[in-house]
């Protein structure tokens, strides 16, 4: 079978995040809650954040979905914690570009996120990867209004 292509999708770092997600749960002291779902497949996510002075002080997620959506959510929370809302939104846009297979700004440190670049080759799975990012973007932009 086409294991090589599959291995590009299911990189070990993704499976690690899926099995042992970071920041899983609900923030008790959060001031932003976003629920989002992917109506075509049933994936759901609840993102709770504590955003103060335009900084994402803390973030947790809960949800149900495939390995790609849950791993992406785990990585997202890891990356935006401590960032300004502006930086978080910029990351979301970079991630979206990555999913579209666009050239990326090399100055941005993608860290684990780079492992999700293989998703761009699986069009049916892009929405899985972007769900939590969309929730985050809605959360921080709503907060900063």
């Amino acid at each position, binding site marked *: *079978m*086409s*294991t090589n*292509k*599959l291995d590009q*999708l*299911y990189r*070990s770092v993704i*499976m690690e995040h899926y*099995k042992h997600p970071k920041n899983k749960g609900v923030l008790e002291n959060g001031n932003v809650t976003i629920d989002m779902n992917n109506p*075509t*497949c*049933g*994936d*759901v996510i609840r993102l709770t954040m504590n955003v103060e002075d335009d900084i994402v002080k803390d973030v947790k997620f809960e949800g*149900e*979905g*495939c*390995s*790609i*959506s849950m791993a992406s959510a785990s990585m997202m929370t890891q990356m935006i914690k401590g960032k300004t809302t502006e930086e978080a939104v910029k990351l979301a846009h970079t991630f979206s570009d990555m999913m579209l297979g666009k050239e990326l700004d090399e100055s941005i440190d993608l860290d684990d996120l780079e492992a999700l670049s293989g998703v761009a080759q*699986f069009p*049916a*799975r892009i929405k*899985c990867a972007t769900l939590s990012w969309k929730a985050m973007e809605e959360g921080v932009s709503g907060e900063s209004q």
Partner: protein
Amino acid sequence: MLSKDIRNHFPILDQEVNGHPLVYLDSAATSQKPVQVIEALDRYYRFDNSNVHRGVHTLGNRATDGYEGAREKVRKFINAKSTQEVIFMRGTTTAINTVAQSYGRANVSEGDEIVITHMEHHSNIIPWQQLAKETGAVLKYIDLEEDGTLSLDKVRETITDKTKIVSIMYVSNVLGTMNPIEEITKIAHQHGAVMCVDAAQAAPHVKIDVQKLDCDFLAFSGHKMCGPTGIGVLYGKKDLLNNMEPIEFGGEMIDFVGLYESTWKELPWKFEGGTPIIAGAIGLGAAIDFLEEIGLDAIEQHEHELAGYAMDKMSEIDGLTIYGPRDPDQRAGLVTFNLDDVHPHDVATVLDMNGIAVRAGHHCAQPLMKWLDVSSTARASFYLYNTTDDVDRLVEGLRTTKEYFNDVY
């Protein structure tokens, strides 16, 4: 079992996907099309294309003959009394919405009841939700048995003298359950309610006899039964349809048009506003010819055996859960399942890399997913062109999936 040669009628099946011969196990979403249907569409557009019911010219007559000829084929296919009871529509969804908006609005009022079940497809839930909201009626659900079947006792408990409409799927697109429509119709009629049947998953696979069922409305789609997309059928009893108002107004459906008042054509055309789905109907007619030549009984038997074979083989896989009735006699040709804690999306992606097409998701049945207490499932659905080889490939693919995720975990 049917001959493997049937596959040769379906050119799309003869291809490789991701380096493997295609195994198409998603016919409950949409079926593939035999060359007979593809050629009927091609022939219509090449030689006969014209508008219907108005041209004096030859092409207009040919198009009208083709379109109305298809209606007669549908009439025979479901054993309706008259072609006046066969209305062409976009699909099952439009047909059920038409019943809800035309019959429903005129006959349902505050305090009345509409009865459906927990296994319905969204297309047989939301039209009734909307009708209930508009009219103040109560939407009631018949509870399912543990194995995903309906018990007639619960049907009797739920339907009351306040019930005006009962609308139930003939065959479940998730559980595969075949529902006792004839018996439920009797119960509905005892309480003075009309019976509407969502036959989207039945029409492709089982012989439908609307007179024997005695249902009042029945809806199905062409694309799940070897026909084109964009064509479906609403069957309704003539006396009911005659008393119903159209919900789409415009060309084709009128008799006399005045400045402030108009009258409608007779059945079935009063429900077919606008230029109809001519090519789609002709394609559906060709699909019916194709299915009837093989025989619906033979098709049902083939799928029944295939599903039984699949359930046996799949049950041998450790950690695989199958949903719906265990008894193959109570179910149609599809198997909905989950594999360990591997998410159905991930299962579907690994299978796809092996050339095997299955569905993953909530199958347009979110309330049923809730009832099953899962967020989504995978589904393999079979049709007349599938073989035991396809099932073997699926089982092999599922074992690969299991190994793959065991390795990466």
